[in-house]
């Protein structure tokens, strides 16, 4: 008799424990995944972040064109010619971006903070 009276109370307590437990697990996994997202650097590449929409889609079209060279078949002068052709296409794209991390955009002059009167200047 006493057992049957306690049952609903225990059930409510278990429900609260279940809700709190699942809430804690959800919070812990969210924190862990955000940490991984940040630590791996994916956060800096995520273009779905607010403010990361680009007008210039020049690169995206090029990125879609994937070069390939089959790992099957003979090694001949002609097959290597084909290989070099594919390689040169990608090399050209890499060379087009060679100055993408030049120091210029962060120089004192570009930021409008250069001092010309001989005061300390650390331009690069």
């Amino acid at each position, binding site marked *: 008799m006493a057992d049957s009276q306690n049952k609903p109370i225990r059930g409510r307590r278990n429900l609260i424990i279940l809700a709190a437990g699942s809430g804690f697990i959800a919070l812990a996994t969210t924190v862990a995944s955000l940490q991984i997202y940040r630590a*791996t*650097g994916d956060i*800096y*590449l995520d*273009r779905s972040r607010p*403010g*990361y929409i*680009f007008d*210039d889609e020049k*690169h995206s079209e*090029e*990125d879609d064109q*994937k*070069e*390939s*060279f*089959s*790992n*099957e*078949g*003979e*090694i*001949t*002068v002609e097959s*290597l*010619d084909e*290989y*070099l052709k*594919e*390689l*040169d296409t*990608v*090399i050209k*794209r*890499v*060379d087009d*971006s*060679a100055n*993408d*991390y*030049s*120091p210029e*955009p*962060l120089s004192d002059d*570009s*930021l*409008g*903070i*250069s*001092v010309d*009167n001989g*005061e*300390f*200047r*650390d331009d*690069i």
Partner: protein
Amino acid sequence: MRKTFALVSAVVLTATMVNPVSAKTLGEEQKGLISANCSSIKMQLKTVEKYGSKSRQHLGAQYESILTNLIMNLNLRLVKNNRASSEIAEQQNRLSSERETFKRSFTEYSRELESLKNSDCKSDPQQFYDKLRTVRDKRNEISDSMQRIREIIGQHRESVVKLQEELRDGR
């Protein structure tokens, strides 16, 4: 005691000399310029960040393409044809390792750039400028990594041309 002192002094001296971003005091005029142009500097930093991110994606895709679609497949094909080249295999390993360096450099650069964007250039231009110099150094590291990757790709191209000449000569 003397030895310990000498050792500590040497460590401190080396750390000071090795640290590429040692703090330098700005002149009053430059501090004023940073404070006055704070908003436009922040806008410029945002643009730099956007284009850096875009370029990282583009270059990452190109390096990935060269490594997995071209060099790895060529290596495999050479092995299947009993013409395995240690030179090309080594280039594959070096490119793979340098690609990781490139990715890591970009992540570090982005972290520093984010910190710079969040720092107060209006009230503390000195601290802002110190952070700016760190970001410049990190940006240079990306550029250096790109150059090393380009060198490896260039060497790889030469190796393939050499192999082609050997085939022409019937070797």
